[in-house]
């Protein structure tokens, strides 16, 4: 066990620090958060810059646009970049989820052309899994792909697709057989999002933003060469994506602690910084143990991956703990501001109204990538080996299973 860098890692860290110092935007005391849309253009420019410097997707092989380094180098990169105000996790869906799927299933030619463009964010990718009747129970999805010659014809609807409005490609899970049981009738592909027959409609979220979308497919075409994995093997492929998603998220997902720590030192109540209040200190200590625990757990998982392991279901814990805490911290921060806590103007509320925005955005983070309940099911069944949920749809052909809203 050694939490310090080896000489080679220290060298890498120094190099990264020097590069960031010259190229990244420093954090201001009043940092705050920009909305996803505002951040988009900045993120594109940042990713390109990182790519040009050779730091994009550190763990990917060089021929696919990465840096050919280890998970530990990636940890070093993340630690250093988190000291700056840069949208480094913005395209995590593409690089964290879709990337590994391509790496695993795409042809060599596809990998050498598409992955570098994903690494530089020249191409933006989205993940098309959820549907109106298939979220937690994602295997209940209905979007249909039918083989005609060497093309698949896609019809149906996806929903909650983050960033679809900006995306060039998407990884999509489709129903290719309704006669077999639901887990066996799916196939995964990647699809060109800019083609005719793909219609993206942004959805207005409860926080007022429109980061996620509905996507309608009307005879959209996918060449069979864009199939990822076997016909009918979509579920296994999807699990691979979801595992990577959790590990990727647990590295970049906000848990609210750094902003809260800053706030309690600057916010004053009755002429004293609120951090002097024993009740606040109690909360601060509890949240710090979770914040530190998530970070250390993520690093432990990456050590296991670096030694050749697969990201395991344990990765669900970072998402579960961090997302709930992020919401609770934002709520508590507003309570500390008392009456003025309801003011959302960037110019007036601390950290450009970070906590007010977070209160309204945090519920979505708890849902995206699997709800709290689904995370707990995963831990209980896949990590602890407890009995599976009794399933009412066991042994039924997909077409006979009721799903989604029936009211």
């Amino acid at each position, binding site marked *: *066990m050694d*939490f310090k860098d080896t000489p080679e890692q220290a060298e890498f860290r120094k190099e990264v620090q020097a590069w960031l110092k010259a190229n990244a935007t420093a954090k201001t005391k009043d940092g705050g958060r920009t909305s996803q849309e505002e951040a988009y253009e900045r993120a594109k420019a940042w990713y390109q810059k990182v790519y040009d410097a050779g730091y994009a997707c550190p763990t990917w092989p060089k021929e696919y646009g990465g840096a050919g380094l280890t998970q530990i180098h990636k940890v070093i990169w993340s630690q250093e970049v988190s000291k700056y105000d840069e949208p480094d996790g913005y395209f995590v869906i593409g690089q964290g989820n879709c990337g590994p799927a391509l790496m695993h299933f795409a042809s060599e030619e596809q990998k050498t052309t598409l992955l570098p463009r994903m690494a530089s964010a020249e191409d933006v990718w989205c993940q098309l899994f959820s549907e109106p009747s298939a979220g937690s129970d994602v295997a209940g999805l209905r979007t249909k792909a039918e083989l005609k010659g060497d093309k698949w014809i896609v019809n149906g609807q996806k929903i909650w697709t983050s960033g679809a409005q900006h995306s060039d490609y998407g990884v999509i899970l489709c129903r290719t057989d309704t006669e077999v049981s639901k887990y066996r009738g799916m196939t995964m592909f990647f699809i060109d999002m800019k083609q005719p027959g793909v219609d993206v409609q942004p959805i207005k979220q409860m926080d007022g933003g429109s980061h996620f979308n509905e996507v309608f497919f009307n005879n959209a075409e996918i060449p069979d060469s864009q199939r990822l994995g076997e016909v009918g093997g979509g579920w296994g492929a999807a699990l691979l994506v979801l595992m990577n998603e959790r590990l990727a998220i647990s590295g970049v997902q906000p848990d609210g602690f750094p902003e809260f720590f800053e706030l309690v030192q600057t916010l004053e109540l009755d002429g004293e910084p609120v951090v002097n209040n024993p009740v606040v200190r109690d909360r601060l200590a509890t949240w710090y*143990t*979770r914040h530190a*625990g*998530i970070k250390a757990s993520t690093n*432990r998982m990456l050590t296991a991956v670096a030694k050749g392991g697969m990201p395991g279901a344990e990765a669900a814990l970072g998402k579960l703990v961090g997302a709930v805490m992020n919401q609770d911290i934002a709520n508590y921060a507003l309570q500390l501001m008392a009456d003025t806590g309801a003011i959302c103007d960037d110019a007036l509320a601390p950290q450009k109204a970070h906590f007010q925005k977070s209160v309204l955005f945090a519920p979505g983070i708890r849902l995206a990538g699997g709800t709290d309940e689904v995370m707990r099911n995963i831990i209980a069944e896949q990590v*602890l080996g*407890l009995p599976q949920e009794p399933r009412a749809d066991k042994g039924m052909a997909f077409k006979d299973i009721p799903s989604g809203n029936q009211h």
Partner: protein
Amino acid sequence: MNFDFSEDQKFIQEQARNFLSSECTTARVRQTLEGEQAYDQALWQQIVELGWPATAIAEDQGGLGLGYLELCVIAEELGRALAPVPFIASVYLAAEAIKLGADKAQQDSWLPQLAAGEWIGCLAVQEKPGALKLGQLATTVTDGKLSGKKTAVLHGAIADKAVVLATENDQPGLYLVDLSASSVSRKSLTSIDPTLPLAELTFDAVAAEKLADCKDIQTLLDTLYDRAAVLLAFEQIGGCDAALAMGKEYTVGRYAFGRQVASFQAIKHKFADMFVATELARSNAYYGAWALSADDAELPLAAATARVSAIDAYYECSKENIQAHGGMGFTWEFDCHLYYRRAQALSLILGGNPQWKELLVERLLRIKAA
């Protein structure tokens, strides 16, 4: 960077687990719990023979010269097995106090004895409820004789020697006292966990040898507590694991409403939360273990973090394990209360959760200011 124990350390842990799972069953732990003995002498003898007390003592001082990482993995197993032995008192507290406060000659004479289990040590600091305040100590030393009363001394009734905190000419310091002296009286107290027994020690002008290298006693005690906090955190996560495993096993085998109790989602989610709390505590403890073994400047924050999360996790695992057992969980016969008692007792050694949370925040702010 490498956030895991080495293969050798894992091997030591596996050996310890195998040994304790056959030798330190809960049936055996119960002999101490039921008051048949103050501690398990035979088990302690075996542990001494295995060399565990010598783990983090240097070779030239009679130790094995391994290190704190090896001691951490052993601690986890002792915690898992609820070992009713004076390991905490003698190894994490007395030996570490001597390492920190004694001079070379004293260390050369005492550490080999502790490593070989020739005597059992304990640490006597507390005099009344609440956080320890150095300025308010009533135990004093005059002309080499120590007088006063100490309470909540872990394994104080059976230890051979105690490291005692006392003031001499208004200067607090640590003193080694032989507890077999006639001027020492000992009273066993009823402890919430009889397998970690407490005692009150009264000293009436007993001969005491000052640990000669105690300069800044506050810093020394802070370091001593930080080291112990990390080691205790490993005992606690071992206990968390055991409580979780016990709850799983019971509910998988029990049926209600025609289903395994462990198939009910409320029960599964309870276990998922116990697992999450344990993993966070484990990861924080690993960080503490590294800071301890590397004697890194981050030890104070890492230790406080490890301690708070381990206290929270063990409380959660041990209390929910009782609930998952239903009425059986509330019986003396079932082992659930052994973990619950142990969780309470471990959380109260060296200050409770509020005290450690306060230390954590102070340290966090200090680092921020630097």
